[in-house]
């Protein structure tokens, strides 16, 4: 810092600051535009690739015909509309919501390592979903008639919400400066939930076991239009709840008291964020199982590119998550074709090194 004499003329800082703010805005728009184009390109590519390959131009043609309501029933049409489109739409939605939920959690807990998969929110959802599969059957048998609603997504939402509330409770007790404690509590909760899943596996019958095995690492193999129709509205609500939180999360990054000083209704924001994350993670787990690390990797990369401000972070994370999960699923279903790799293996291969990198560069244990 140089000494500025009282009489010195005003330096170029004024225009520098304006330039800085303008260049930041421009970069933001450029990245958003690029991501939008990229998402569309990846979606078209992912729809085209597979055992029955469809060229990108043909994919667009089929989609256009389908959108017009034209009744075409050739093989391309059946594959694109009947099989690939629901799957790709689901990967886009699940990817977007997982990345956004990660960004929201990290903002809430002021910790870039807070990922729904790592701190047990996904595990909570998976445990509840597994319980719904194993115990749900017995419940229906005992009742003698089916439940009036689908138990699985409700249970997954409940499990995720429970995980979030536990973290929030630990965070409140630990205080603002001990966010590492929250992370450790989350790890413990994840371990507990996984033990619970193991227990359920032990008492499950063969059919339940097959259903259960898919929770462990996640798979989009069962993507159908009906599963998409079930998940999409809930994911939309989760994203809609998270969308306006950007400014509040920015303020929360400075601290809870400071956020209040800056006019943020902190308790309400936290409640909305909890429900958004629980809904997003719960629905994703119910639809495709636990896909880890997306919520940590994507916001981390976005922060490196755009800085930590949450409004662009949430939007770019949605796009980034959609791209990442769609590409990961593309690899998962092609690399060992005709067999499918669990997608969670791929995201873990990508995410674990990022996690280690984040841990290594953390200063002074504050995380």
């Amino acid at each position, binding site marked *: 810092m*140089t000494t500025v004499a009282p009489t010195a003329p005003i330096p170029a800082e004024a225009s520098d600051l304006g330039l800085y703010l303008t260049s930041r805005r421009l970069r933001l728009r450029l990245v958003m535009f690029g991501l939008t184009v990229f998402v569309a390109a990846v979606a078209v590519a992912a729809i085209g690739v597979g055992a029955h390959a469809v060229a990108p131009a043909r994919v667009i043609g089929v989609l256009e015909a389908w959108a017009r309501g034209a009744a075409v029933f050739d093989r391309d049409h059946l594959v694109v509309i009947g099989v690939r489109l629901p799957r790709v739409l689901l990967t886009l939605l699940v990817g977007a919501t997982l990345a956004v939920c990660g960004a929201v959690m990290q903002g809430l807990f002021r910790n870039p390592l807070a990922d729904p998969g790592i701190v047990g929110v996904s595990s909570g959802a998976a445990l509840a979903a597994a319980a719904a599969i194993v115990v749900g059957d017995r419940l229906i048998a005992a009742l003698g008639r089916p439940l009036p609603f689908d138990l699985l997504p409700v249970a997954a939402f409940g499990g995720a919400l429970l995980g979030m509330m536990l973290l929030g409770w630990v965070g409140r007790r630990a205080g*603002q400066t001990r966010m590492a404690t929250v992370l450790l509590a989350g790890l413990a909760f994840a371990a507990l939930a996984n033990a619970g899943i193991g227990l359920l596996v032990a008492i499950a019958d063969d059919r339940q076991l097959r259903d259960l095995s898919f929770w462990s690492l996640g798979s989009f193999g069962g993507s159908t239009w009906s599963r998409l129709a079930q998940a999409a509205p809930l994911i939309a609500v989760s994203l809609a709840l998270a969308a306006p939180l950007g400014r509040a999360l920015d303020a929360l990054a400075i601290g809870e008291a400071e956020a209040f*000083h800056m006019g943020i209704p902190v308790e309400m924001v936290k409640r909305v964020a909890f429900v958004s994350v629980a809904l997003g993670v719960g629905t994703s787990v119910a639809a495709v199982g636990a896909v880890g690390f997306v919520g940590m990797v994507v916001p981390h990369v976005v922060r490196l590119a755009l800085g930590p401000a949450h409004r662009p972070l949430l939007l770019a994370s949605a796009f980034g998550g959609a791209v990442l999960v769609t590409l990961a699923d593309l690899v998962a279903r092609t690399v060992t074709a005709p067999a499918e790799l669990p997608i969670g293996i791929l995201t873990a291969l990508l995410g674990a090194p990022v996690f280690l990198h984040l841990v290594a560069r953390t200063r002074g244990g504050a995380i």
Partner: protein
Amino acid sequence: MASVRPLPSVAAASPLLRLDRVGRRIGGRDVLAEVSLDLAPGRLTVVIGPNGAGKTTLLRLACGEIAPDSGSVDWEGVAISTRSAWWLATRRAVMSQSAEVGFSFAVADLVGLGFDAVGRRRSRTERSTAIEAALRAADVAALAARDVRTLSGGERQRVHFARALAQLDAGSRDGGGRALFLDEPVASLDLAHQIGLMEAARRIADRGVAVLAILHDLNLAASFADEIVALHDGRLAARGRPSEVITEALVERVFAVSPRGAGETRAPGVPVIAPQFFSPRGDLTRSRAPHGTTS
């Protein structure tokens, strides 16, 4: 408590914020009891007192962050507890003691958060002008593009001061009173910046803002305050003009330190540095860099 009496000039100005016999218990202990205090527009009030005297609790009560267990806190005659976080944020800004930023915000962006908190409807030019002015007032303009987490403690403190100023600037323009709360704003600052920050606070008060600052440096407090509030064990020990409050008797009673023989330090031959920086009041309203002002 002989020194607790209203100031003549204060009685005339209607208070912006009135704390009436407030008390607060934390962990079964009376952290604050029976403290009354007025904050008036244009007045710089400094709170002094030993560690654990209840200074920060008083500030948190006054800014609406926590509610009193007894007594009342009124903003322009209306209980502060009925006001929303946003309503308060448009009228007062707070610089708390230790704000640890969770992510790598650039200094200009962090100060921008202060502006954005309440200045959503303002133009882009207004925003950048306000941020610029706040950065300058806190002498952090040269750090504008730096990652706030790489700064020193003192620099960070000045950035949070700038953030509070930007919020104050962006806040309500409805003509109502505004307030600025500073919790130990100079705790990690070097001598020149201590003075620079207090001069900036003084200028803000002179523009009609009610300023409440917690300070440990009694010389600094005496030099800038219109009114000093001394707390001791959660109670009001004294309140009044600096000359009425900062007396040998009070320093001995409240801080258990004898101020006599203040011309020398314990180290032989090392004098007490009491910088002769204090310009006449009129001078302080003039904008200037905080440097080069010490003698």
